[in-house]
């Protein structure tokens, strides 16, 4: 019988289940199957129950940002509000438009939630607790988020509704566009840790979190993830007043509930991903000796990330669709490629020409390189905006322009001869 280990209680329960089933005389493959099934059941349940709490949290915090109380009638402090909402959605009639494509119409919310739940299969909760420590974790994450994009397209297309279709096109265009800088900034933790497996990336942050070594990449990843989840200021996908709710127009009752579950779970998934890649995941004092502490640190960091998302949402206005696309292709993509090049060069130059630098020295050099990068990007934007204003107005007094101007004159780029 596996010895009771309170510091590692979930893994002990897993091994205990295996030992108990084997002692009943079952075949080892079947025992493994039941173990995995139990683990997955617990993980999927926890992952689907967390949004119920985070929805309440978000409504309270967003309310406080807007100088009002959030829900406070249903239950103490409004804690039962999510349950009330779920009950309401369960009892609403499920209307399917009569010319809609029934199979795809019913499957698309399921695929949407599937793409979010399965992200949690590779996220490490503690030093010994990770669902599947595959060695291509980052690539798996990108593939799965592609599945979410397909689900939105399916929902919009099968609804047999012009608004849904246009909303789905816009949503897919935005999601697909912002995946590019997200992937490029994800390359930087992979570079700094030498592996695509998320558990290895977290373990490589034992000495220094990657947010110190690559702050610019971290902030870029955070911003592009907010665009990926369709949250303000990028929430044109669900801007009810503007495009009549977009792709989930024709969904009613619990199917709409499942779309909302997908949106809130996705919003919460960004916090843990940001914590894993840049804030050191489950790392913290005594996290390797007492794995359960790792879970506590991880949850603290991911809720911090989620709080930042709510903060940004309550503060910034919505960006227009053409500004959104220009911002991505003309600012985020070149700048993230630049960050990748600078980080690659500086880190390799340091390990090649100054192999003895310790952790602190490496952190200082990379941080300084990032700061210089940010300064040069700001100077580049200022010059570009200045040149644009001089061209447009013939006016010499130009202030610091904003990066979202969609003009194709960019003096910071070396123009190829043509």
């Amino acid at each position: 019988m596996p010895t009771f280990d309170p510091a590692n209680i979930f893994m002990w329960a897993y091994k205990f289940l295996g030992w108990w089933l084997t002692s009943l005389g079952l075949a080892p493959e079947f025992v493994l199957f039941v173990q995995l099934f139990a683990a997955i059941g617990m993980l999927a349940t926890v992952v689907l129950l967390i949004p119920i709490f985070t929805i309440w949290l978000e409504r309270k915090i967003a309310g406080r940002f807007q100088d009002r109380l959030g829900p406070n009638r249903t239950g103490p402090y409004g804690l039962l509000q999510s349950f009330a909402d779920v009950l309401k959605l369960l009892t609403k009639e499920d209307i399917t438009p009569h010319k809609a494509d029934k199979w795809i119409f019913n499957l698309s919310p399921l695929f949407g939630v599937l793409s979010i739940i399965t992200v949690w299969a590779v996220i490490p909760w503690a030093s010994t607790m990770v669902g599947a420590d595959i060695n291509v974790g980052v690539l798996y994450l990108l593939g799965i988020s592609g599945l979410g994009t397909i689900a939105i397209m399916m929902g919009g297309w099968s609804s047999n509704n012009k608004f849904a279709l246009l909303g789905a096109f816009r949503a897919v265009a935005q999601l697909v566009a912002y995946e590019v800088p997200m992937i490029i900034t994800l390359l930087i933790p992979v570079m700094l840790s030498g592996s695509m497996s998320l558990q290895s990336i977290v373990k490589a942050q034992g000495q220094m979190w990657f947010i110190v070594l690559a702050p610019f990449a971290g902030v870029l990843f955070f911003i592009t993830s907010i665009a990926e989840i369709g949250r303000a200021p990028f929430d044109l996908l669900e801007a009810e007043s503007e495009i009549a709710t977009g792709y989930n127009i024709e969904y009613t009752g619990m199917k709409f509930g499942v779309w909302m579950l997908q949106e809130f779970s996705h919003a919460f998934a960004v916090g843990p991903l940001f914590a894993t890649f840049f804030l050191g995941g489950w790392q913290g004092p005594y996290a390797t000796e007492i794995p359960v502490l790792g879970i506590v640190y991880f949850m603290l960091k991911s809720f911090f990330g989620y709080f930042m998302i709510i903060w940004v949402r309550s503060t910034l206005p919505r960006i227009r669709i053409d500004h959104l696309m220009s911002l991505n292709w003309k600012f985020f993509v070149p700048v993230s490629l630049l960050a990748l090049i600078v980080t690659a060069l500086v880190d390799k130059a340091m390990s090649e020409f100054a192999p003895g630098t310790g952790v602190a020295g490496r952190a200082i050099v990379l941080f300084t390189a990032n700061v210089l990068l940010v300064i040069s990007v700001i100077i580049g934007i200022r010059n570009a905006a200045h040149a644009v204003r001089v061209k447009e107005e013939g006016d010499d007094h130009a202030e610091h322009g904003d990066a979202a101007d969609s003009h194709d004159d960019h003096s910071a780029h070396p123009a190829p001869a043509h």
Partner: protein
Amino acid sequence: MQTDWLFIGIFLAIGLVFPAVPIVLAYFISPHKSNPLKNDTYECGIETVGEAWVQFKAQYYIFALVFVVFDVESVFLFPWAVAYKAMPFFMVFEGILFILLLVGALVYIWRKGVLEWA
């Protein structure tokens, strides 16, 4: 490692079943009183005009194309990033050369005016 992929396989199957449970539950609890007016397509309260599957703007296609170019580039960059720590110094330049080729492509499509939303 095979256990890991089995974990993901079972997770995909369970992930498809879990959200279906409340939908099936709602099917039993909710009323079913459909009439032709309710099942009609929504168009801000008026009768629908024309087919629903409208022609889409070609601009969406172009953005998807640009995305495919950069996605394939990043897929090629992943092995370079994983092997980064064990590489000699000049190999970083090789990767950067590859990135610069694609930055050149980005500048080309930028100046061609392909990235405008219109």
